[in-house]
C-alpha cells in the first residue's frame, strides 16, 4: 500500500543536525558554528530552519493552548487546576464564564471537576494563568478522559484536523483534544472505547509514515467486526 515505509530520521540529544547555513528551531541549539539536537525526536527541516519534533516530554504551556484540566484546589477567588504540566495553573474567578462573588467559587467549580480551558498567559518564570472566557470553555460532564503524551497531540489532530475528524466521523463521538495530552471523548461507551483505541493506535505509531491509511484500516476493521455504529 502506498505511503508505508521507513520512519523519518530519529536524532538524540547532542547529535549534529546542521551547520551555520541553517537556523536552529525548536528542539535544537546552536554551538560553535553548528546546530545540534537537544531532544530525542524526529528531525525536520523547512525554509532553512532545522527542528526536532520531540518523541516524549512533559507538557510546557504556551499562551493560547486549549487544555483539559482537573480542579485540585479551591480558594475564595480562584481555582487551582492540574493541567499535567510541571507548573500549577490557577484560574482566577474573573477569568471564568460566570459572575463569581468572593468566597463563592465552590458554587461553580469544585475539586474533582474536569474543565476545558485555555492558557491565558505564561510569564518569564513560567507562571501560568488560565482562562475560560471563550466559546469552547466549559465544565465537562459525562464521557471519558484519555491521556496521551503531549508530544503526540499534533499527530492525533492531524494536518488541518484530518486525523481527529476521521476518528470522529467513524465513531460518531464528540472529541476535544487538549494540547496538554488530555482528551475528552463523549458518546455511547462502545463508540468512545473504539475512539480511545484509535487514538492510542495513533499515539503508538505517531512517527511512522502512512499513518492515516493505517488508521482508516483499523477503524474499518473494527466497524466490520462489531457492526458499525457510525454507518450512515
Amino acid at each position: 500500500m502506498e505511503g508505508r515505509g521507513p520512519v523519518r530520521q530519529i536524532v538524540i540529544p547532542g547529535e549534529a543536525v546542521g551547520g551555520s547555513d541553517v537556523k536552529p528551531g525548536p528542539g535544537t541549539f546552536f554551538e560553535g558554528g553548528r546546530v545540534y539536537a537537544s531532544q530525542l525526536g524526529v528531525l525536520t527541516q523547512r525554509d532553512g530552519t532545522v527542528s526536532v519534533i520531540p518523541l516524549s516530554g512533559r507538557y510546557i504551556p504556551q499562551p493560547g493552548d486549549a487544555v483539559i484540566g482537573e480542579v485540585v484546589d479551591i480558594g475564595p477567588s480562584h481555582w487551582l487546576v492540574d493541567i499535567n504540566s510541571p507548573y500549577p495553573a490557577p484560574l482566577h474567578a474573573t477569568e471564568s464564564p460566570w459572575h463569581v462573588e468572593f468566597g463563592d467559587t465552590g458554587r461553580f467549580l469544585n475539586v474533582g471537576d474536569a474543565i476545558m480551558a485555555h492558557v491565558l498567559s505564561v510569564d518569564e518564570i513560567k507562571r501560568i494563568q488560565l482562562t475560560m472566557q471563550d466559546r469552547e470553555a466549559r465544565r465537562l460532564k459525562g464521557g471519558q478522559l484519555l491521556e496521551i503524551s503531549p508530544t503526540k497531540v499534533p499527530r492525533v489532530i492531524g494536518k488541518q484536523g484530518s486525523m481527529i475528524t476521521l476518528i470522529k466521523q467513524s465513531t460518531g463521538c464528540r472529541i476535544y483534544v487538549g494540547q496538554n495530552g488530555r482528551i475528552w471523548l463523549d458518546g455511547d461507551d462502545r463508540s468512545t472505547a473504539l475512539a480511545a483505541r484509535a487514538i492510542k493506535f495513533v499515539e503508538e505509531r505517531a512517527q511512522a509514515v502512512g499513518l492515516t491509511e493505517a488508521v482508516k484500516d483499523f477503524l474499518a476493521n473494527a466497524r466490520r467486526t462489531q457492526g458499525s455504529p457510525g454507518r450512515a
Partner: protein
Amino acid sequence: MEDIEHFEREVKLIDENGVRLDGRKSDDLRPIRIEAGVLRRADGSAYVEWGGNKVLAAVYGPREAHPRHLQDPARALVQCRYNMAPFSVSDRKRPGPDRRSVEISKVISEAFASVVFAEQFPRTSVDIFIEVLQADAGTRCAGLTAASVALADAGVPMKDLVTSCASGKIGGVVCLDLDKEEDNFGEADCPMAIVPRTGEIVLLQMDGHLTYEEFQKAMDLSIGATKRIYEMQRDALRRRYSVTLEEILNESPPPPPPAEEPVLRDPTSEYERFEADLDREVGP
C-alpha cells in the same frame, strides 16, 4: 569487604599472557546490553546489563520541585538518587541509603547538572533514580550510562548524553572495566564520565595507587571505551521508536472484537471460561 576470608592465597587476576580471570584482555569491555523505555509510570527509563551488573534507571520531570523553599527560581534542580537493592550483593545489604550511596548520588547529580538545559524549566526538578538490582563492580558507571538514556527517553533537553566507564590496575597492569573480583583485589579503580561530543569530563573519582603515566593509560582506555558505549546508548534510543509501519502492522494482532453487550453478568458463571483463558496467558 565480602569474600576476602574465602581466599587463602594470593589471587592472580591477570596472567603472563595478559588474560584476566574471565578471559578478557586488558582493554576488553564486559558484554553490555541497553534498553530504553522499560517502565510505564516513569517519564523516561532505561535498563542496562553490564557484565554481571543489572541496573535500572528512571526519570521523572521536569516536575514541580518540593519542598517549595528548595526551588530554584532560575532553573530546574537536577537530582539523582542511587540505591542498591538488598539482594543485589552477596551479603544482603540493609534497605536504605548508606554513606556510599549518598556520595554516589551526589557525584552523579553533578555530572548531569552540567548537560541538562535546566534554565528552560525554572522552579522544577528533574529527578533521576538509579536502582542496582544485581551488582558486579562498576555500578555507578552502569547507572550513569542508563540514566543518560532515561533522561533522553523522558524528553529532557540536554546538550549531549553522558557516557561512563571505569579503568583500574590489577596485577600491576592497567586494565579496562574491572569486575567484582578485580575491584576487590586490584590496586586501583578510576571511574569517569564524559560528554561524548565535547570530551568534557563530568565525573572523575579514583581510589588506590596509580603513577601519573598509569593514570593517563587508564583514562585513554576509558575514553576509548566510551565511544563504543555511546553507540549502544544511541542505538537503544533509536530502537525504542524506530519501527517501520510494516513491522507494526505485521506484529500486532488484529483489534479484538468488542465484547457483546451484556445486560448484567453473573460472576460465578464466568469462572469456567476464565480458567480456560488463563491457560492461554501463561507468561514466560
